[in-house]
């Protein structure tokens, strides 16, 4: 029953999103100014509007859009003159890969470093981690990316400046993209672990002679995972929208860049297709996060 309710709500949110995106994107203005030459005549603009259906009332345009969508036609990109959904589906896996790897590394790093920081609060690890997370949260991606390119590619010549390829091509984008999620997650892990380490069950475990490693990584960490999953879910959602700056600088043709360019170019079909694809992905992600809660906490499962 819950599944039905949930599916229904998901569909409703998708529909509301579609309506919002459709009408809001058209508020950005007349695309003919961006697609026709500066000296285009008013007649040429009118012909362009007619050819693309922009001369119809907005509601008619929306109905046509929904009708076409139900037959699998998500519209044609004005700029690339090919199906908008193809453009979105080419870009999304790239974003997904980059986001997935970054998040996995950030979570793993945060779990280890956050736990160590919580183990001895105000110790060396804790202070170093605190500083890193502060720096990660405050340094602008753009600056960090260009600086790392200048150091590791131009000065030292050990990593490629940009582009997609083998492991070497992943290092800089993942570092730049992962700094902020790592900084955020490490603080969450640290906070949750400090609370967990002072709880009665940890004291019991210690009293029973469990090793400190076991106490930290088995008993306390598992119980600290819920807030981590929540925050990681939020981060994953924002990464799925595309890490525009990192993707742009490093030449990873992900969905963020496609979406921003489509907005700037008033390429409505592409705006709609990219947002639809990411929205569906985020809805799936939310379901996964809910399922993970259930795995980690039996009380959630029961509810």
């Amino acid at each position, binding site marked *: 029953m819950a599944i039905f309710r949930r599916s229904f709500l998901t569909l409703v949110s998708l529909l509301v999103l579609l309506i919002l995106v459709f009408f809001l994107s058209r508020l*950005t*203005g*007349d*695309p003919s*100014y*961006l*697609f*026709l*030459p*500066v*000296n*285009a*005549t*008013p007649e*040429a603009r009118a*012909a*362009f509007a007619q*050819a693309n259906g922009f001369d119809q009332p907005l509601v008619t345009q929306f109905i046509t859009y929904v009708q076409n969508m139900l037959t699998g036609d998500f519209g*044609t990109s*004005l*700029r*690339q*003159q*090919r199906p908008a959904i193809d*453009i979105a589906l*080419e*870009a999304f896996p*790239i974003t997904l890969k980059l986001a997935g790897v970054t998040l996995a590394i950030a979570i793993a790093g945060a779990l280890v470093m956050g736990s160590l920081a919580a183990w001895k609060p105000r110790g060396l690890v804790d202070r170093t981690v605190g500083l890193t997370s502060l720096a990660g949260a405050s340094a602008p991606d753009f600056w960090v990316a*260009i600086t790392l*390119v*200048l*150091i*590791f*590619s*131009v000065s*030292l*010549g*050990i*990593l*490629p*400046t*940009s*582009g*997609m*390829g*083998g*492991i*070497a*091509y992943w290092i800089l984008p993942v570092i730049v993209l992962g700094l902020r999620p790592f900084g955020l997650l490490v603080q969450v892990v640290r906070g949750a672990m400090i609370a967990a380490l002072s709880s009665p069950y940890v004291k019991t475990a210690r009293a029973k002679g469990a090793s400190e490693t076991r106490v930290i990584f088995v008993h306390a960490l598992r119980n600290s995972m819920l807030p981590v999953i929540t925050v990681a879910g939020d981060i994953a959602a924002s990464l799925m929208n595309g890490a525009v700056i990192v993707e*742009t*600088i*490093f*030449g990873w*043709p992900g969905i963020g860049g496609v979406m921003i360019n489509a907005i*700037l*170019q*008033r390429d409505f079909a592409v705006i709609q297709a990219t947002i639809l694809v990411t929205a569906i992905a985020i809805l799936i992600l939310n379901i996964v996060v809910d399922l993970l809660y259930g795995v980690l906490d039996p009380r959630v499962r029961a509810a």
Partner: protein
Amino acid sequence: MMQLNLRGATAIGLVLGALSLAPAFAQDAAKITIVLPEEPPSLEPCDAKHSSIGRVVIRNITEPLTMLDPQSGEVVPMLATEWQQVDADTWRFKLRQGVTFSDGTPFDAKAVIAAFKRLDRTDVVCNTKQQTMGGVDLTVTEIDPHEVEITSSKPSPILPTMITVVQMSAPSMDMNGASRQPVGTGPYKFQSWQPGQQITLARRDDYWGDAPVITDASFVWRSESAVRAAMVAQGEADVALIIAETDATDPKMDYAYPNGETTRLRIATNVPPLNDVRVRKALNMALDLDALKPIVGDEVTRAEQLVPQNTDGFDAGLKPYPYDPAGARALLDEARAEGVPVDTQIDIIGRDGIYVGAAEMLQAMQAMWAEVGLNVNIRMFDTGNWLRYQNRPFPEPDAPLLGQDQHDNLLGDASFTLFNKYHSNGVNSMLWDDQVDQLIIKGENATGAERTQAFQQAFRRIHDDLAADIFMYHMVGYTRVGPRIDWKPTIATNSEIAISEMKLAK
């Protein structure tokens, strides 16, 4: 701390080296990589005036009948070997023989007809015709397989110049959407396109002209100028097109070259106080544009007209307005005394990133105008909204506006600029002057010295008598060329990169 970082970085380097993770920087001898600022939206020949398409397609994959020599600005043969005017509306072109498209189709009169037909497509955005031919319709007929006659719907004394933009695409190319696999007669053929990543071209063995040195070319794109420059410095690419002046830091690799662009602020000459010529002259005289050059590039030169040198109609005798704040103040006082509302707020319609330093330039100009008592306000727009102010019908037609603008004329003739920008009926014009209108029309219908002089007189009136613009600079571009190849960018480089002209450095 720094020492630690360096040590750490070196350690990572050693590890990567040991694992052979570092990319293969050294490239095959005759393979090159060109890094562009953006991915082309398509490779559609009928839209090759779109510079991001033209850079890949023009003179690499497809070729025109005639081309402009970037050095002299003259029309020279390409796929047409000679031509002559039959009457005011008609020209005949003899076609080069023994030329084939890369798919094996012969290049002949029928192919020319098909290529011109492609220009008339309305199912996709095909800007070449609209952008360069105004309202002129061209009809091509076959005289024999190696000669065509082109008739224009109105007299076109510079038809051979106009058709330099028409790419000869193969008749076999379909008309389904914008092409992503063009077929032409050029020295290279389209090989592959990995969307978002790269486009590759390969040298043809059956090219009609001299075989180029470069065998394979990859086009990649990075929107950050610093990354493009770093790619060449690092050996990942051989040419980084259009880098910012701040990234052009290596005199051995970085070339500054006139890029055919001219900057100005267009004045709404019909709205008070800008309808008073004294105010317009004062706006020009209040600016120390020589001092502001470093904002856009030290190599830029002052402009007095909206076309670059080597353009038919360029008047080398025009002198820029001198920096004379006292004179500007005197003109404004005189106008004020006669009731001209000089103190009205004037708005600049600016566009973020129209050129490097665009916003900073406006701020500096605003400060200089404030010095002479002018009240100028800056309004910055994104491209789409800025473009609305470029074209008729103008929004806010009664507001005293200055429009930030950059215009390129790479076609070697002032007619591609004058009508649209300054004629009373020009779609971008904010000038209404009978004398200018007559000179433009006179020039457009004339040839030779008469044409040149009419256009020169028009520019002189626009600058000296009417001060219709705030005239700024003939701009420069910066492109980085790596040590492996021997090639220098030209005025045409921003819109076409002929790989066949590149040699390997000795």
